[in-house]
């Protein structure tokens, strides 16, 4: 197992290097001189020279890249142009908000996605299956920012049940925090639940046809035991992998969800950075999400091995 983890970590190195090159290259594609933007209105020649030296802008591009990469590896992602804060610190501040939103959305997705997937596989080709499939397909086709707008219209504007925007930290007021996050989490969770339902359904269909389920039934075990202990447990192996991989979708969806509900998270940070041309922040975010995603992939592989006894000894 340890050898496997090490091997996977080694494979991740060239991928991360490649991403860092993309991210660095993006900035080099930009027209204009970043130093002019940083120096402000006065453009004092001494300041310009100082900044050029500081950011190694007089060096050849590969050397600039090496400096940038070394800094990034030590957690220095540069300084935000907009508010003069280190990018790493900005990300650190906003990330917990998005993590809270993602966890709540994932709970919504699991609670909706897995039971409907199991039921629809178990009652294949009945009206239950049909309704679940319509639900999943609609969930995949509905733009989640529109779903958010419609929910605000119905639940906040018309009914006045939940606040339309804002954020309260769970450390300040846990109940209020959950209340403000409920609608955003539901919006983000439904789109994820649709893919989760589809994966659960197809995994369950495969498992329900297997010999061990037939044997369990032949032994006379109660149907519920067969379904939960024998079928679901095995069907969960691929579903766990898929859930870790849905992380990317969660982050992408969070960008829009946070924009609609004005939640001060990671997604709002990237959109604000895009509009204020704060490229260091955009770069930092792409790099961080990519590295996190590779980490999630690694976890998915490990979980797959741990959950699937047939893989353990390979």
């Amino acid at each position, binding site marked *: 197992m340890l050898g496997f983890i090490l091997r996977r970590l080694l494979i991740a190195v060239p991928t991360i290097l490649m991403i860092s090159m993309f991210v660095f290259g993006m900035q080099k*594609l930009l027209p204009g001189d970043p130093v002019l933007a940083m120096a402000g209105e006065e453009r004092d020649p001494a300041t310009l020279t100082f900044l050029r030296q500081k950011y190694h802008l007089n060096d050849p591009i590969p050397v600039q890249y090496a400096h940038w990469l070394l800094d990034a590896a030590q957690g220095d992602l540069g300084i935000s142009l907009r508010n003069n804060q280190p990018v790493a610190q900005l990300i650190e501040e906003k990330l917990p908000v998005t993590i809270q939103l993602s966890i709540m959305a994932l709970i919504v997705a699991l609670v909706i996605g897995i039971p409907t997937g199991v039921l629809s596989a178990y009652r294949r080709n009945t009206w239950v299956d049909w309704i679940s499939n319509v639900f999943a397909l609609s969930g*995949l086709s*509905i733009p989640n*920012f529109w*779903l958010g707008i419609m929910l605000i219209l119905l639940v906040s504007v018309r009914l006045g049940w939940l606040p339309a925007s804002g954020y309260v930290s769970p450390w300040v007021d846990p109940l209020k925090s959950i209340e403000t996050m409920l609608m955003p989490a539901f919006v983000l969770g439904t789109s994820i639940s649709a893919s989760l339902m589809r994966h659960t359904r197809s995994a369950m269909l495969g498992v329900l046809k297997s010999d061990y389920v037939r044997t369990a039934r032949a032994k006379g075990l109660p149907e519920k035991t067969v379904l939960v202990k024998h079928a679901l447990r095995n069907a969960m192996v691929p579903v766990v992998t898929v859930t870790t991989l849905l992380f990317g979708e969660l982050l992408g969806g969070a*960008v*829009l969800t946070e924009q609609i509900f004005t939640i001060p998270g990671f997604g709002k940070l*990237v959109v604000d950075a895009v509009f204020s041309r704060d490229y260091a922040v955009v770069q930092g975010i792409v790099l961080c999400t990519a590295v996190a*995603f590779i980490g999630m*992939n690694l976890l998915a592989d490990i979980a797959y091995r741990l959950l699937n006894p047939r893989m353990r000894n390979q």
Partner: protein
Amino acid sequence: MSAAATDIATLPKRENRAWKKLRANPAALFGFVLVAFFIIIAVAAPILPIDSPIKTSWSAIRKAPSAAHWLGTDDIGRDILSRMIWGARASLLAGVISVAIAVALGVPLGVAAGYLRGWTDAAISRMTEALLAAPFLILAIALAAFLGPSLSNAMIAIGLSAMPVFIRLARAQTMDVLTEDYVESAHAVGVGPGALVWRYILPNIFPPILVQATLTIATAIIAEASLSFLGLGQQPPAPSWGSMLNVAKNFLDQAPWMALWPGLAIFLVVLGFNLVGDGLRDALDPRDI
């Protein structure tokens, strides 16, 4: 002539069987109808008897749907029906062109990786993994930000973000086809690499690519709407469903219809492509699950 020869002659071709299966699938047919409807209105936009999508009218600000304006008017008195119809052009164009970019770049790279193997494969595969590691929408937003906000840049950003999926698929399918007996025999009789790719590999990897492309159009349309919603796609005053929603969210209380129609249209056209894609997959997949 033996009976066997006649049998082979009368056996329906794979395309015909797929077509039959597709026609017997009501969900896929419904998807076709939805997609066709939006294509027709998008193509016919210039000849339809509707107002100009950018003509403002100060006497008709935020009017609810009526006989004069079937879907109502927006915050500066533009006819929403007309903006919806012209917006269909932006959405469909963005969906089709960005997927065309993804296929045009991704399939050759994938076939090259799968056919040449070795270092080419290693380099292309690492690049694909790197691109796949950044979440699709975040990558598209970052690319659109660096390229500058416009509809064509949004298409390029979405196309590049969708490309890795096609590289992976084309690579896997190519390696699959290469193990087939008929490819080995073609090799044995001296068919060159160019002809092999053109006559044997491409036609055989076409069905799964077509399915993936159809489903990716659905994703790309949502991505374009998302970018335009954020202000990174179609620029005002040109209409796009995403940017219409962006404006509409400020008038939810006074003019809810402004938010209703564009979202509904995105939902229906994306549903259409998803249904067609699912139907194509069922029809073309030899394994019947």
